[in-house]
């Protein structure tokens, strides 16, 4: 009997550890972090190697499938699509590859969104709340496959950007190497 209990306990605790943050619905946002990322303007060009640390209370957005899905919605609503398309790039650089000009750590992406970058990326400081920038950062990183699969969103309810399987490789626009959230 005791063995049963132990097994059950082990089973339950594994499940719990494995799922707790992925399934969190973050409905009440924590107070904004210490504003360093938001306010300090980093010099015009910010090389990719220079990674900006993520404040600990923002990690949860990278781990919650709900937050990433919110980021996906905001990506459309705030018209990120207009420049970056659905990750393939256009006016702005593609977001599906991993070589990002300004770094791919969550903190880098956050800073890029909040501060804006030369050659067209506007600054969203004061325009969007911090947590939404974190959600956007999380989603954008999921496009590049930088988030675990369980957290990355699956296909959205819109026209898909995936090239058809019968199309020849040279017809695939540059930058598109797969579909968000799916193995390449």
């Amino acid at each position, binding site marked *: 009997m005791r063995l049963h209990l132990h097994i059950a306990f082990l089973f339950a605790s594994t499940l719990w550890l494995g*799922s*707790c943050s992925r399934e969190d619905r973050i*409905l009440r946002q924590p107070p904004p972090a210490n504003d360093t990322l938001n306010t300090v303007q980093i010099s015009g060009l910010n090389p990719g190697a220079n990674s900006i640390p993520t404040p600990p209370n923002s990690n949860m957005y990278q781990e919650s499938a709900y937050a990433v*899905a919110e980021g996906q919605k905001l990506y459309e609503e705030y018209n990120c699509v207009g420049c970056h398309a659905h990750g393939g790039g256009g006016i702005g650089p593609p977001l599906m590859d991993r070589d990002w000009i300004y770094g791919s750590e969550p903190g880098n992406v956050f800073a890029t969104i909040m501060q804006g970058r030369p050659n067209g990326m506007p600054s969203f400081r004061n325009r969007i709340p911090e947590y939404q920038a974190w959600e956007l950062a999380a989603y954008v990183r999921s496009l590049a496959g930088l988030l675990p699969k369980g957290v990355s*969103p699956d296909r959205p*309810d*819109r026209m*898909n950007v995936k090239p058809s399987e019968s199309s020849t490789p040279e017809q695939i626009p540059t930058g598109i190497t797969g579909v968000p959230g*799916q193995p390449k």
Partner: protein
Amino acid sequence: MAVAEPIVANDQDAGQSGLARRLAHTWRQPKGFLGWFCNTHHTDIGIRFMVTAFIFLLLGGVLAAMIRLQLIRPENSLMGPDLYNQVFTMHGSTMIFLFAVPMMFQGFGVYIVPLMCGARNIAFPRLNAFSYYLYVGGALVLWGGFLTNTGPDVGWFAYVPLSGPAYSPGHRADIWSQMITFTEVSALGVAICIATTILRHRAPGMTLNRMPILLWEKLVISIAVIFAMPAVMIASGLLLLDRLVGTHFFNPAEGGDVLLYQHLFWFFGHPEVYIIFLPGAAIISTLVECFSRRRIFGYTPIVVSVVATGFIGFSVWVHHMFATGLPQLSESFFTAASLMIVIPTGTQFFCWVATIWYGRLQLRLPMLWCFGFFFVFLIGGLSGVMLASVPVDLQVHDTYFVVAHFHYVLIGGALFPMFAGIYFWFPKMTGRMASAKLGAWHFWLFFFGFNITFFTLHFLGLRGMPRRIYTYGPDMHWQGLNILASTGVIFMTAGLLVFLANVYRSMHTGEIAGNNPWEDAGLEWSVSSPPPPYNFLHVPTVSGRDPLWEDPPDQPVVVGLRDDIRETLVTHSLDADPQHKDEDPGPSIWPFLAAVTVSAAFVGSIFTAWAIPIGAPPVIATLIGWLWPRGQSPTPLPNEVPWIH
């Protein structure tokens, strides 16, 4: 080679205790921890189904109490929307998939059907055991998910696009879809076992027109399960593909269709109601006959009604979708079909009244629950007539009026007959009588509480309270009725506690029951209580619809089945003439192992695609182990041998 032994057997014969000993040895089930997982006898598996399903009834009841507590006042902060959505989804899914069908169809069916047929075991006992473990697997997935904040939060119907990849991030809806696959495969497996048992293992002489009504209903339900479950498995399978592989079955932007899902789901969902209700009706027919001390009136009309219900049940699913906006012609068609189903149900009601009217009613405990059923199900059925009318449905659809309606139908059609059946077969399962006094307390507490809670909900629905809202404003004036509805929970809980106390006490100190405490007619009452592992010392034969009432004392029995191996008799599906002997495969660990590997592969596939290639070899290995040929081929019966005596 088995040869029918030309001996005349009769229960009074000398030497039968030797036979009983030999049979008990041959049909024994392994003991101990590992033995528990090897058991393939239908009485054990049936009781396991019932106990497991009852646990989920209690868990679902706890969720229901949480819902009632949340709604007890406006702007209640007990639960937020996130938790509340999980709770009501879990309540519905638990009650339908983990309680109602496993209890009413699988539990009662697996336990009773072989006994009523006069068979030594259910057909395909290993498939039957496999189905049980798979059901437990699905239940663990669902509740494991819920306890780790991964409980589905999209409603027990999981309509797309809300349950689709775009609006349900994470794995919550995946857990729901996989749970469906588990429980429905389990129901399918049991349906095949039960249908085969009824068609091929009936005692000689039990022709189709002598089959007890309960067997007819189980047969119809099994066939309905075989047709209905694939629809929902397709729906949940397509949903999973949409969510995990990025297909577009339900994505409107790519030409997918959100209504397709609803059609598939309700094509299962409405027959499901009859899969839950018909076993209840079967229990009622059995009990009405027994306690009216009179052959049931209208055997043929009742059987025809049951078969008709099975058919019509498949043509009414659209009445769950009236609000999607249908052409008038199809509205009228589905209204007519939904109304038509009242006719067979009404027929059964009228036949029950007539049987009681012209019989001699003994209002013993199980019959008290039958009367509870009559009252409650009648109200549910009549409000169902209202809902069949499209204009009325458009007003009360998705309000608490509908909630009231289907609780009257489902609690009336499943829970009341279930308690009637449990009290009725309790002596058979445990060997002791359940306390009638505690049972009556249980009944009145539950009946009172149930009506307080759910009758009130009709008014809330008419007052415009929609379903599935986690809170409401004080200006809606729904509070008083909600408080009233919530108080009923106290009485229902008290009733259930009395029931548990009754079961516990009666199992230990109840009056010893004997073989046939109710003097009923079914074959299951001809064996000791609880039944021995071989069920029948000699496979019986019958000469009428009510064997124990009609058969003469010198009714012949089947002899010639070997007692050193597990031989069963296979009979003709129409007239139950013996055809050949078959060997019961006996206890085995493989069904359990197969269920474990299948569960692991399916649950794993939610999280990673690797679960399929990694999970498949163990599944194949366990199936090879399971199916490894070792037995004998069916033995034909010798012609012209006096093997029925």
